[in-house]
């Protein structure tokens, strides 16, 4: 029973990591940029949702939709204003730039909403389901179901919509995509919008169970580990990597001495990099001359 209980809470935590990791992977695949501020974008999404749903008192569904729209616009704007001038700069510069962005976002959120932790109350907060001894909160169910639905939507989007297919083409070969008449720069903005939207979804899903404060974005680092475990560049890999890390973390907290729970994500990451550096679902191949 205990094991099942841990498994469920691990999976629901892992889904959040997975969703943030999904944002990393999308941006990396399409633009070859690494966005270290993905966790902070999730934090911002949680705060925006908190503002709409709790401070302004809008109906929850409307708050969710508005949050997604606002955050998608934010993502596209960030790409246009900050990342676009960096095209062609070494990857190290872009990495440092997004780290700097993370700092600014964290301080900005602290200035606007204050540094004390808040809780997002939702219509489904507080309910529990008892499945023969395994007690699951509604919030955790919503996280797992929400992730599954989002994955399905993303799958359909990439498979059938023109924009999704254009994104895939861009991530496979920018030059060829450009020759085919795909507006690569606009696709970049759209990818950033999409990934900010996914991060905001993660923020909305995790906010009812975690505290909303400017430092919550630090779980982005664990999501990074998830993305690498899954194989940087694979979308299902990101979710799976997130779930693996979430579950292991829960078990480490219970069965291993203190300190292992905080580090388990990174230990998995280092072991993974040693044993199978290309990740579970390898998509990256060696560079050719």
């Amino acid at each position: 029973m205990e094991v099942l209980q841990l498994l469920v809470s691990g999976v629901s935590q892992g889904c959040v990591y997975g969703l943030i990791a999904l944002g990393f992977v999308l941006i990396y695949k399409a633009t070859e940029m690494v966005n270290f501020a993905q966790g902070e974008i999730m934090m911002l999404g949680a705060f925006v949702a908190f503002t709409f749903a709790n401070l302004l008192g809008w109906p929850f569904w409307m708050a969710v939709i508005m949050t997604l729209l606002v955050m998608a616009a934010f993502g596209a704007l960030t790409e246009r204003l900050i990342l676009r001038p960096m095209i062609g700069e070494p990857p190290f510069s872009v990495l440092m730039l997004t780290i700097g962005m993370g700092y600014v976002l964290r301080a900005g959120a602290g200035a606007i909403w204050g540094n004390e932790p808040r809780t997002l109350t939702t219509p489904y907060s507080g309910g529990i389901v008892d499945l023969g001894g395994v007690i699951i909160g509604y919030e955790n169910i919503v996280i797992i179901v929400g992730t599954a639905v989002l994955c399905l939507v993303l799958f359909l989007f990439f498979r059938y919509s023109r924009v999704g297919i254009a994104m895939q083409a861009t991530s496979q070969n920018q030059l060829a995509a450009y020759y085919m008449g795909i507006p690569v720069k606009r696709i970049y903005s759209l990818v950033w919008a999409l990934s900010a939207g996914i991060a905001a979804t993660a923020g909305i899903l995790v906010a009812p169970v975690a505290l909303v404060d400017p430092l919550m974005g630090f779980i982005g680092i664990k999501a990074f580990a998830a993305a690498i475990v899954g194989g940087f560049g694979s979308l299902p890999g990101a979710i799976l990597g997130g779930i693996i890390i979430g579950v292991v973390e829960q078990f480490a907290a219970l069965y291993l001495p203190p300190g292992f729970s905080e580090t388990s994500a990174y230990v998995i990451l280092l072991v993974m990099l040693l044993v199978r550096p290309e990740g579970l679902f390898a998509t990256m191949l060696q560079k050719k001359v």
Partner: protein
Amino acid sequence: MRFVQKTSYDQDIRFFEHRGQVFWYGLLALAVLIAPLFIERFYLGELSLVFIYAIAGIGLMLLVGYTGLVSLGHAAFLAIGAYSQAWLMNQGVPFPLTLPLSGFITAAVGALVGIPALRMTGIYLAVATLAFAIIVEQVIIHWPAVTGGFTGMVVPRARIELINLDLQQPIAFYYLCLAILVGCLLIAMNLLRSPTGRAFRAIRDSEISAQSLGIHLSSTKTLAFALSAGFTGVAGSLFAHKLGYLAPDSFTIQTSILLLLMVVVGGVGSLHGIIYGALFIGFLPQMLAVARDLLPVGIAQMPGLEPALFGLILILVLIYEPLGIYGRWLKIRSYFEQFPLYRRATHKRQKSYLRTERLR
């Protein structure tokens, strides 16, 4: 503008290109040597801290600026240096021995981390070093027998018993840091004009062409990692004496980012840049304190103003002056050297396309 006519091959590897450099560096050396006579105690301490940052910066610059490997976890090496220094001192090892020893210990750890890290490039390496730093932080917290855990540990005073010299006096400590910084700079300069240093740069510019020139990639990269860790470890042991008391919260991710900020703001890929960067982050708190007085109360009292400014500076430097303070200085200098004839296009950044790391 000065054109140096080269008449022998030795001129290419000389420390100083021309007489003017000898004069100006000599003046600088004189200035830092007699500085303790004129500077207040407080600023002397800050200046020692700048020197310590600069030593760590040499380590990070070797890795980031010259070998092209990114480390987001250099605070871990700083911590290992600091803790091994304090532990060795507590075991009764005399100070002149502990300093190089803790450098070697850190270099050994760096090599150990480096070996698996070599199979990775770019972002993988950055995240692996970040993971390593977080693990080191947790080890420090959960290993109280050696590190004192959360409560921390006292660092014994740095003394040389033989001549009864207390190195922890501000002036003595200033000269100690200065001497070690100059020593490290000389080592780094010599390293960079040796075949090894050139191999580092070859790897930075293109791994594949470096490999085809016969450079052994993994051993060279391990060496770069070990050297970088070693320099940072020496800086860490001085840092331990500067702090006087070690606690895990001195060596967090923020510290790693601060070190990277130093390298970026100073100017990636130049030893001059390290000094500028170290001066910048060393005196940033003072500048911020002054700026706070000038700002309206509402903004000045805002919590988290410092990290926000850090982030902002990082973004602005990366977008507008990727070569940092040193790059800007070169531009200003060439403006005056060619005074009426300066052309903006001289320093125009070449338009480059994304260099893909992928096959498909």
